[in-house]
Every structure is written in structure tokens, then in C-alpha cells.
């Protein structure tokens, strides 16, 4: 493969992935509204298109045409920068997630992954850890106390849970002895090799931390409507708000993708093409997300910190230690 070919193929892959993720985000909102509607014994969006399938598009159009408001005492540059900072790391994550097996198209062998880094997991971490800036800066630069409080809360929450988040997958890494996501998938060829069965504790911790990382209910304190209006994006409107919105859903999807890759065997599966399996698993994970949101009440802030530092963190540490011990023996 020549350099030119590489450049072209990579560009195509990037474009395809970005488009897919954006569409995924849009329909994730639809899925959420629909599911929550049914959980609450109502129908959810059903007017725009069949089953309300056109609803996300309508929403998008509405958001784009709204007025872009910037508060007077906002720090303009950072205020403008924050949604982008939120959005970009969320998208970057997809660069290393393998969506499927190698396929041959037009005589070219194409990996179904934008870039197969041999430190893929570390890349995911690095990018995830950058995600916090968008929120912090949004909260700080809005010049509103609700935003500030929401920003501080959410960044504290993300930093706290990042520790347990990182440790929870350490067990998988210790068993797999690799950072590469592709290899991780390859090691989960049969269902029984899925890491969820070898790392059940790690998986549970991962799910909880992932929810907290993405500021979703029941850990959605930073945007708790009842106390903080809408947290860090209170002052945002129009397209900037849309970017936060997309960023959040992109984050959810990326976390789901990573979970699928790490614990649920990635694209591995019988009969159906790999990409389909991957999508099925991600949708399953997203549904769990939404299900949890519809079921559980919000935690108090001290409970949240308690859970993160005094329950999950030691548990994850213990999990790593036990796993290492078993691997060592």
C-alpha cells in the first residue's frame, strides 16, 4: 500500500466513521426518548415520520436556527472553545475502535479501524481525560454561578471516577497482556473467552464508572435540573448547545464501543457480519444506559464521592490485585 493509497483510504475511513457516529448520536437521542417513553408507559415521539424516526432531524433543524446567545460577562474565547473541546475528544475516541474484521474492497485489504495503535487503550484514556476540559471551561467561562458549580462538580466527578475507570479495565489488560484493541478483540474469539466472564467485577465497575464519566443519570449531578438549572451548559444555546448535546451522546457511544471491545468480544459473533454484531452490541449497551437512567434516582453529591472513592476504587484495586495474582500463578 503506497502512501497515497493510505492517505486516501484513511480519509475515507475518517469521513465514514464521523458520519456514522453523528448519525448514531442523532438516533441515540431518538432511541432514548422512545425507550424512556415506553418505560414510563407512554409512546414517545411518533409524529415526525414513521415511529418518529425523523424527529432527530427536526430537532437538529430547530437547534441550528435558534439564536446564538453569548452572556455579557462570559469569557468569549473560552466560551466559544468549550463546546469544541467537549466534542473533539469524544470523536477522537473512535479512531482506535475496531468496528469489524479486515475486509477486501476493490482489491484493497482494509482494516475496519481508522488506526490500529498498539497502545490503543492508552489512547482512549488520554483522550477521555481531555474530555473534562470542555465541561470545566464551559462552566467557568459562562460567567454564571450555576454553570460554575456544574462545571466544578462535573470535573471533580470525572476525575474521581477516572481512577476507578482506569483500574477496572486493568484486569482485562493484565490477562490479555496487550494495549491493542484489535488484539483484545482477537483474544475473544468465542463467547466463553469474552472478558465479561473472566472479569465480571471489572465489568460492573466499568459500567458504573462509565455512566459517571459521561455524567449520565444517576450520576448526572452536574446538570441536575432541580438544583443547578442545567449545569455547565445553562448559558449555551443554538449550535453550541447542540455540540454539547452531540458530544455527550458521542461520549456515550464511544464508551459503549470501548465496553463492547473490551468485555463483549468486539465484532466477534456468528452468522451475521462483524459490523452488524458490533452495532447490535453497542445498541444493547446503550439500551442498558437508558434503562438505568429511567430506573434509578439521582445520587446525592457526597454519596457519589463516597461511592467513587471508598467503594469502587478499593474494589477495582482489589480486582486488579486478585487478577494479577491469578495470572502470576
Amino acid at each position, binding site marked *: 500500500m503506497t502512501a497515497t493509497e493510505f492517505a486516501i483510504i484513511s480519509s475515507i475511513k475518517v469521513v465514514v466513521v464521523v458520519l456514522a457516529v453523528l448519525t448514531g448520536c442523532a438516533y441515540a437521542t431518538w432511541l432514548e426518548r422512545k425507550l424512556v417513553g415506553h418505560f414510563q408507559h407512554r409512546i414517545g415521539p411518533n409524529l415526525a415520520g414513521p415511529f418518529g424516526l425523523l424527529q432527530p432531524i427536526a430537532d437538529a433543524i430547530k437547534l441550528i436556527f435558534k439564536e446564538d446567545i453569548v452572556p455579557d460577562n462570559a*469569557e468569549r*474565547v*473560552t466560551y466559544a*472553545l468549550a463546546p469544541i473541546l467537549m466534542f473533539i475528544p469524544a470523536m477522537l475516541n473512535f479512531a482506535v475502535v475496531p468496528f469489524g474484521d479486515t475486509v477486501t474492497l476493490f482489491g484493497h485489504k482494509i482494516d475496519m479501524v481508522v488506526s490500529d495503535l*498498539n*497502545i490503543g487503550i*492508552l*489512547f482512549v*484514556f*488520554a483522550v*477521555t*481525560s*481531555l474530555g*473534562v*476540559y470542555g465541561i*470545566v*471551561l464551559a*462552566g*467557568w*467561562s459562562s460567567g454564571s454561578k450555576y454553570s*460554575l458549580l456544574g*462545571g*466544578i462538580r462535573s*470535573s*471533580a466527578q470525572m*476525575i474521581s471516577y*477516572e481512577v476507578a475507570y482506569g483500574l477496572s479495565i486493568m484486569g482485562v489488560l493484565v490477562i490479555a497482556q496487550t*494495549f491493542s484493541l484489535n488484539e483484545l478483540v482477537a483474544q475473544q474469539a468465542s463467547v466463553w473467552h469474552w472478558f465479561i466472564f473472566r472479569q465480571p467485577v471489572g465489568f460492573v465497575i466499568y459500567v458504573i464508572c462509565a455512566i459517571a464519566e459521561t455524567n449520565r443519570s444517576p450520576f448526572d449531578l452536574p446538570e441536575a435540573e432541580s438544583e443547578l438549572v442545567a449545569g455547565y451548559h445553562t448559558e449555551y444555546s443554538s449550535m453550541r448547545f447542540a455540540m454539547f448535546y452531540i458530544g455527550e451522546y458521542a461520549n456515550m457511544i464511544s464508551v459503549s464501543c470501548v465496553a463492547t471491545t473490551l468485555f463483549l468480544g468486539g465484532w466477534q459473533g456468528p452468522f451475521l457480519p462483524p459490523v452488524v454484531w458490533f452495532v447490535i452490541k453497542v445498541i444493547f449497551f446503550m439500551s442498558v444506559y437508558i434503562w438505568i437512567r429511567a430506573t434509578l434516582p439521582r445520587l446525592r453529591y457526597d454519596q457519589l464521592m463516597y461511592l467513587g472513592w471508598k467503594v469502587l476504587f478499593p474494589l477495582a484495586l482489589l480486582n486488579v490485585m486478585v487478577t494479577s495474582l491469578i495470572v502470576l500463578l
Partner: protein
Amino acid sequence: MELIIFYLAAVVAVGGGLMMIMQRNPVASVLYLIVTLVAIAVMFVQLNAVFVGALLIIVYAGAILVLFLFVIMLLNLRGEKFAEKRTRLDRPTRIILAVAFILELLAMFKQVAFPGRMDELMVQASPDFGGARPVAELLYTKYLFPFELTSILLLVAIVGAVVMARRDEKDKKRGI
């Protein structure tokens, strides 16, 4: 190609660094420092130090600088302008010193360390150079003792930070 990336990274790093120290607003400084760090991480990757590069982003950008940002937000610092009271000579002296220092460094590079073309000295890197495994191997064998010491250092830092930042009753009453 590599050279182009390097130049880009170098310019971004130096420019970010300069912007960082020239800002009045600490939040902007933090952002510029992040930019610089990302550029440095790029150079790390160019030097095959993939693992350490990723760590640099995770540790610095993900943790340390968030802490900075936190403190800035906590103290609610906006671009403060400090009252001017320094003597007239101070600033020029300092700038001259800094310039002299970098000139000396460059002169030192030129005459002491590298006679001849450097790329000839370049050794082919081993296959797994810069990965997590060799770092870990050294860390747990040759450098085990410093590594353990580091853990003690971190513990001390945790305790120290907690003790110092804790508010005592007096402060609580003052509402700070």
C-alpha cells in the same frame, strides 16, 4: 514528512510556551500549556516513546493541569493586573539573563556535545522500544527502589496536600 511534523510540533510547543507565560489570564495559560504538552507528546511519539507520550497526556493534561484549572476556578482568578511597584532595572535584567542562558545552552550544544553530523550517530531503535513492557521491566527490576520511593513520595504529597488545604474551624467561621 517526519521533519514537517516535527517543525509543526516544535513551533506549536515553543509558541504555546511563550503564550503561556505572556498571558495575564491564568485559564488561558493553562490552555496554552496543554497545547505545548500535546506538542511535546507528539515529539515523544516521534522519538518512539509511545507509552511515555500517552502517559504524558494522561498524567499531565488529564490530571495535573485539571488540578491547576480547579484551583484557578476555586480561587476565582480572572486576569488580575498586579500593582506595578518593581524597580525599573528588574525586568530588563531578567530578560537579559534569560537570553544569555539560552545563548549559552546553544553554544554548548554547538561546541561541546556534537561534533559532526548527528544523524550518523543515530542507532536503529529496538523493535519494542518505547512500549510499556520494557519500561515496566526496568521499573520493576533495575529501578525498583526509586519506584518504591516514588510511591512514598506520593503518599507524603497526598497527606501534605490534605493537611494544608484542610480548613480549620477558624477559616470556616470566616467563610473562606
